[in-house]
């Protein structure tokens, strides 16, 4: 479906880690599993494209019949005019049929892209275990896996349709031609073999060049994103010229690699098309020899010329098949990195993707299970970072209604402690227990309604503020109360559209303090037994922070585990843990 395939992404930014030159040949099996998820869509496509590719053979046949009857039109029966009407008709019907086929194909195409996307996102967001290390690199880089890598794999499924269609048409064409002139037919088949060989021979080099070009591109786009993200620092230091010098060097590097890659791709493509055209020339040579022994008719030449054109398209698809499958070998590995222990294309527990109707409404969150918090206890909790730092054998207890504050130096491990308790980072040793019962998987267990979390640098998503706070949580009238507790009520009232205001990078930009308070509202609306709050002071001024704490702690029964340096908060604390180099060095009880 060359003409209907969506344009490949302009830049494959972020795919800079494609070092894996010898990726195992996994794309064929992967595409097979993907296709098997919805076999009907693939089979219908197969039938459509086979018909689409084969009809020109019929049209060519009718042209041959017409030409052979120009000078010897039989009286009555199937005349040259009948043949021409038939030729026009089959082609016209073929093109009208294309419309139906294309709509069906586009549905299948979206399906092939959606299945791995949904499985990857499910794995990243819902798989039990720590949240760190789920993305091999930045989120921007990971998006290229949802866009470019699923694209590459879907392209394999797609090219199979074309190869099958063009292949079947070629076989039929060659069979018909062989009844006319066997030697010329064999000559016509030669180009397919030649191209297939050339693609194989060039494959490793082409791939290496493609990877180099993509890495160079990623280096450029990454640099642009970084420097404009850090414009203030560069501006105040007058570093503009230094930045441009570096940009120029990266650009030069990229141009050389991109040029090599693009020319090589063009060579492969033109090899395929030239071999097709040259095929006609070769057939003519063969027919010239045949003409010594017998008469070569115009119909015969017309038949060969039109069929060789059909057969001549096959090398291009064979070449694409090889190229796409090799590209997808890398992609399959990259997709699988996001779904450790499972297959992103055919997971152990497949989920419906509901493309036709859209998904059913989100399931209500789990109801409270009666295990209301009495006591949360961490014992010997240890979590180390690769680059050093982390926490070491930390003990911690939070009882219902208590406020426990963690304080300490920068890099002492305060945030890590909170995240280890919640299971967001992997603990290498120690236990977390809830009401005396050890929690096997804190990341699954310490979620609303048991616990909710306000990160130090929260992320607010681009959607109406109400949705950004609720995140699918049912609004049982608690939304406004949460907004009020988080001291966001005045801000919301000032917004023209109130809670319907679209916020985030694609909406109204909130200030750092507003984001932090919205994140607090997000946690509070869940009415958690345990509220876990990382340092609020980084974006809130003292007065606002104090007011927020006053409102939150004013609620009866609020149980809080927080990182804070503010004495005002320390004064309200039942217990203050001082952390130093990952150890609790002092516990101040009230």
């Amino acid at each position, binding site marked *: 479906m060359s003409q209907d395939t969506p344009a490949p992404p*302009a830049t494959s*930014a972020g795919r800079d880690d494609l070092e894996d030159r010898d990726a195992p040949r996994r794309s064929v099996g992967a595409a097979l599993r993907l296709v098997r998820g919805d076999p009907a869509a693939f089979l219908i496509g197969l039938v459509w494209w086979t018909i689409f590719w084969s009809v020109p053979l019929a049209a060519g046949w009718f*042209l041959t019949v*017409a030409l052979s009857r*120009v000078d010897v039109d039989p009286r009555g029966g199937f005349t040259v*005019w009948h043949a021409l009407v038939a030729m*026009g008709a089959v082609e016209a019907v073929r*093109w009208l049929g*294309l*419309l139906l086929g*294309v*709509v069906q194909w*586009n*549905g299948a195409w*979206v399906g092939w892209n*959606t299945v791995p996307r*949904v499985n990857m*996102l499910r794995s*990243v*967001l819902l798989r039990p275990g720590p949240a760190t290390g789920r993305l091999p690199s930045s*989120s*921007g880089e*990971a*998006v290229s896996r949802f866009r470019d890598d699923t694209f590459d794999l879907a392209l394999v499924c797609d090219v199979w349709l074309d190869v099958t269609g063009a292949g079947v048409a070629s076989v039929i064409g060659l069979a018909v031609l062989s009844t006319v002139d066997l030697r010329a037919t064999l000559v016509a088949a030669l180009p397919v073999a030649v191209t297939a060989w050339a693609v194989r021979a060039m494959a490793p080099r082409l791939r290496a060049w493609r990877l180099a070009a993509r890495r160079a591109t990623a280096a450029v786009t*990454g640099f642009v*994103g970084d420097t*404009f993200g850090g414009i*203030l620092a*560069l*501006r*105040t230091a*007058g*570093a*503009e010229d*230094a*930045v*441009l010098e570096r940009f120029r060097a990266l650009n030069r590097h990229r141009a050389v690699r*991109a040029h090599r890659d693009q020319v090589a791709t*063009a060579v492969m493509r033109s090899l395929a*098309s*030239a071999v097709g*055209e040259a095929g*006609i020339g070769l057939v*003519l040579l063969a*027919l*010239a020899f045949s003409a010594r022994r017998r008469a070569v008719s115009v119909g015969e030449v*017309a038949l060969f010329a039109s069929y060789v054109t059909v057969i001549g398209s096959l090398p291009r698809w064979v070449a694409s098949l090889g190229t796409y499958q090799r590209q997808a070998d890398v992609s399959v590995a990259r997709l699988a990195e996001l779904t450790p222990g499972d297959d992103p294309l055919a997971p152990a527990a497949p989920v419906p993707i509901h493309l*036709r*109707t*859209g998904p059913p409404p989100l399931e209500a969150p789990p109801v409270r299970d009666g295990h209301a918090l009495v006591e949360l206890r961490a014992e010997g909790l240890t979590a180390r970072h690769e*680059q050093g730092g982390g926490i070491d054998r930390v003990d911690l207890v939070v009882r219902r209604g208590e406020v426990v504050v963690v304080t300490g130096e920068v890099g002492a491990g305060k945030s890590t402690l909170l995240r280890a308790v919640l299971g967001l980072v992997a603990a290498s040793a120690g236990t977390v227990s809830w009401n005396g019962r050890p929690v096997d998987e804190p990341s699954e267990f310490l979620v*609303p309604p048991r616990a909710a*979390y306000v*990160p130090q640098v929260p992320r607010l998503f681009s959607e109406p503020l109400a949705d950004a706070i609720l*995140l699918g*949580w049912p609004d049982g009238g608690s939304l406004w109360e949460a907004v009020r507790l988080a001291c966001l009520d005045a801000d919301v009232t000032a917004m023209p559209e109130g809670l319907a205001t679209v916020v985030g*990078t*694609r909406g109204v930009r909130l200030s750092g303090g507003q984001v932090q308070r919205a994140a607090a509202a997000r946690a509070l609306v869940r009415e958690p037994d345990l509220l876990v709050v990382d340092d609020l002071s980084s974006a809130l001024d003292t007065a606002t922070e104090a007011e927020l704490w006053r409102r939150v702690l004013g609620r009866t029964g609020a149980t809080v585990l927080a990182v804070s*340096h503010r004495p*005002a908060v320390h004064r309200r604390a039942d217990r203050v843990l001082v952390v130093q180099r990952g150890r609790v060095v002092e516990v101040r009880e009230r």
Partner: protein
Amino acid sequence: MPDAPTSDLRLLAGFLRPERRKVGALVTLLVIARLLPLAGPLVLARFVDSAASRRPTGVLLGLAGAYLAIAVVAEVLLLAVTWGAVEVAWRAGNRLRERLAAHALRLDLPWHASHAPGVLIERVDGDVEAVTRFTGSAVADLVGNAVLVAGALVVSVAIDWRAGAAVVLVTASAVAALAGLRSLGVPASDARREVESKLYGDVEERLGGIEDLRANGAGGYGVHRLLVHSAALWRAQRREAVRIDAGYAVAGVVHALGTAAVVGLAVALERRGAISLGSILALARYVQLVRRPLEQVAEQLQEMQKAAAGLRRTARLLGERPSIVDGPGPAPGAGALTVELDGVTFAYERGGKPAMRDVTLRIPAGAVLGVVGRTGSGKTTLGRLMARLWDVDDGAVRLGGVDVRDVPLADLRRHIAVVTQDVELFRASVRDNVTLFGALVADDERLRTVLGDVGLGEWLARLPGGLDEDLAGADRLSAGQAQLLALARAFLADPGVVVLDEASSRLDPATEARLVEATDRLLSGRTAVVVAHRLATLDRADLIAVVDDGAVVEWGPREALAADPSSRFAARASAGTALLGDHP
């Protein structure tokens, strides 16, 4: 900076002007390469006629060989064109990229605040990519296909004007069908792209907030959103397919019927002896020869629209003018400078609420001014105006007695360093992060010393790659460590004036204490403005300014203010209340 070109064509012309000689040669080569295959059907016709009239095998072999040679030579020529075109496109594209980057880097900060880095990647790379792709391959294809179609029509007419006229008619009808129906597809394509960009944007945000989602039990919500977007994409893409392919289908039908009509006409002509049998075949092949190029021309016109849209955005970006430009000079002298604000009034938005109202301050050379006040009271603005990140609306800011607007920006920024609360880090080596890609000149020895001075020596020693270690974004540094690194930058810059903007607000007391010595050294011999919430940070201030709602409500020597029980500063200092910060 030269004036930005205003029209697309001028921009495209300017884009290719330095390459014009090469472009000329490429176009010539291209025309030859695309006209050559037109001889194919003629050779085929001669072959058929020769075979029918039982000409010697040598003639047939010669014709077959000619066909083969034409096919091979045309393809080789096309490859040569591709080689050259891609090279030209990249050279010109990179020139434009660099021009855009240079321009954008100098635009005002409010402009940057309203353009996310992702958007700028699109402007500086994505749009240029569309242009380079267009000039690199699509222009060649577009020109080539147009030449091919025109040539096929001319040759058809030359074979027989009646049959040729029929070929022209068929081609024109197919073009009309494609052009007429193509406009149907454009809104549908836009709609699909819109859905797609929402889908990817949403995925990127969710992936960036894994912890936010998981710890708040909202993972399922994230997946649900993807399903909703995917179903929307399914609908949009199918809708687009019908509309886009309606054009192809109708053109295909027109073509199929037209081919039959042309061949029928040719048959009638042959029977009257006007053309040869082989010419029927040649005409049939010409009709078929133009079908695919016609479709491609339609596709490439779309590419051209994309490229033109890219160029328009590029031109718009180049048309943006920074309001903060170099002053005529000369720069103030070296060393610590007096800093004066003289009746300064400033609002971030024109006509908006002023962030500074008639502020007058004077800091003698070498003195340290501590600025206190609530968040949003204007403390941060004060520092930004001194570094001339914004221009004042009224009044003047003077360094060493020279108005900052009268100084070249590069000179001004050599004299002043700003340490902001949000430290900006780059995915580059430690060395590049500290020296800002070499803008601050220092050898490794000096870098190590400076990093040690600010308390990052131990951290540096732990990095396997040392100064060459890639910082890969902000992942490897805690917020406090990042702030220490920003201080190291200020040390390297060695300016006469330092603005420490809430530099210690994220640091815990112990780290702050470690910093005091280094900061004291940074401040000594320099004029400094220290913006802070905390009184502890202000111990080394000679002067104090209390800011409220954009106005300086109190200022004077710290000791005098502290000693005056009626001063706000003294009141806050003793109470340690919220206005200044409640640190002990």
